[in-house]
């Protein structure tokens, strides 16, 4: 899939049917995708789940493709765009593979849970064993399939693990409704902090 909005969607495309998102998102709901890319996922949700699909995208070229697909998207920055919205405007806000890239992730999460009933958050797991091994044996900033960048060139500014997110959720008193752990397109059943490449959390306020 070209122009996917990060590995999560890629994974889901890999499953061929958007299985995971389809499983999570209720038909007819209102969904905001933060960093919607070219809008494939939202267009798919609008088409197959009758979803009221909204998107935010920073890249003008991607945004144009998204709007051309009929997705109601606009150019905006994830860290500031939520301020305008009223409380509980959405049923779901998607944050795919960007939590580790934003300056104030906790603030963004708090904003998401203000404007939405649920957050669906996906991020690469820095606790994955390949990352640990790379760091242990090379003694350098890990460069793996999951984190392919050189340290000076990386968009990632936070390096969180599955456990880190769980701890934050507990501390913030968020309710983790569901959690999915993926390795490639496979679901990881045990030792997610070690074995999951990507974690997907469905979070709501208590």
């Amino acid at each position, binding site marked *: 899939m070209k122009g996917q909005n990060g590995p999560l969607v890629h994974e889901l495309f890999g499953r061929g049917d958007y299985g995971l998102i389809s499983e999570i998102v209720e038909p007819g709901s209102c969904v905001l995708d933060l960093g919607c890319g070219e809008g494939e996922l939202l267009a798919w949700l609008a088409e197959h789940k009758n979803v009221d699909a909204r998107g935010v995208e920073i890249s003008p070229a991607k945004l144009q493709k998204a709007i051309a697909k009929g997705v109601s998207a606009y150019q905006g920055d994830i860290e500031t765009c939520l301020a305008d*919205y009223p409380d509980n405007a959405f049923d779901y806000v998607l944050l795919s593979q960007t939590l580790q890239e934003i300056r104030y992730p906790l603030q963004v999460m708090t904003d998401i849970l203000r404007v939405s009933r649920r957050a669906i958050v996906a991020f690469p797991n820095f606790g994955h064993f390949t990352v640990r091994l790379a760091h242990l044996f090379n003694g350098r900033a890990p460069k793996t399939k999951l984190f392919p960048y050189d340290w000076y060139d990386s968009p990632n500014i936070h390096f969180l693990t599955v456990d880190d997110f769980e701890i934050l959720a507990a501390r913030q008193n968020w309710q983790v409704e569901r959690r999915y752990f993926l390795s490639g397109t496979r679901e990881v059943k045990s030792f997610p902090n070690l074995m999951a490449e990507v974690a997907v959390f469905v979070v709501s306020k208590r």
Partner: protein
Amino acid sequence: MVVTTQIKQFKSLELESGVVLAPVDVAYETYGTLNEAKSNAILIVHAFSGDAHAAGVDAEGRTGWWDNQIGPGKGFDTDKYFVISSNVLGGCKGSTGPSSINPATGERYAMTFPVITIGDMVRLQKLLIDSLGITRLLSVAGGSMGGMQVLEWAVRYPEAVASAIPIASTARHSAQQIAFNEVARQAIMADPDWSEGNYYDKRNPGRGLAVARMVGHITYMSDASMREKFGRRQREENGIFEVESYLRYRGSQFVDRFDANSYLYITKAMDMFDLANGAQSLVPVLAKSRTRYLIISFTSDWLYPSYQSLEIVSALRRRNQDVAYIELTSNYGHDAFLVEVDEQTELIRGFLARTMKETDKK
């Protein structure tokens, strides 16, 4: 196929001021075919100096002002949609305006024409749409002053507008926009031939009107586009700068096709337009609309800068209304909305297709 502008007459139109215009004409054209459910109608509303002839070629061989966007396979695809375009109230291209004959006196209205507003233009369009038996428009679309009419439609007739496409527009003029219009008005009124508006049997106030148009054209371009188009090049035969020559040509051309009094009335209507009716916030007034929005602005448009579009987008977000917004990159200034065809085609096509799908669902 040759396109012909048609005229429809209505018994009367009550203006926002309470004044009743009777009778009132509207000039319009249509393209494509209205479907049986009458659910595929799109109203195109023109910018300041436009007219009903938006697409196709007329008997004089003139191509419509938005022909690159309206037609078979284009953004407003006339194979799918029924497109209506009309001349605004106060205009001089077939709709009732200051140059029309006042039936009460047998003379032209000239400056006795009542003050009109963007809202009045939309009221006349509503009469036209009603007369065509259309209760709900799939979309209302237009750039610049057209965008103001689009916004007015969306808040005044929320049930009659499924989607709205205001391009390079604003919910209200800034001081700068009013200032340029005032310079243009003063140029017209300073021309002795204007004679308090009673020039119809005499000499046209062509010099004033041409200067007004020259100022307008400067504001429609950008520094970059003017540099690229003219630079400091001079004409060989007389040594005048290319940019001077261009503006003079545009000015004199305009005099032949536009009425000076219409210029005064329409620019005043634009300046007075305020979607929020004097309120600071656009949120309450926009909350009335039940419309999907596609809002487009352009990076180099300094006459209708992007912040004006963003103000609308932000107000719509406050109520979580359905809005797509993009600032397209262009060097063409305000003219971009007529020039940047491909990007807009793609956006408009996708947006309309989705709107049509959702309309069909309901």
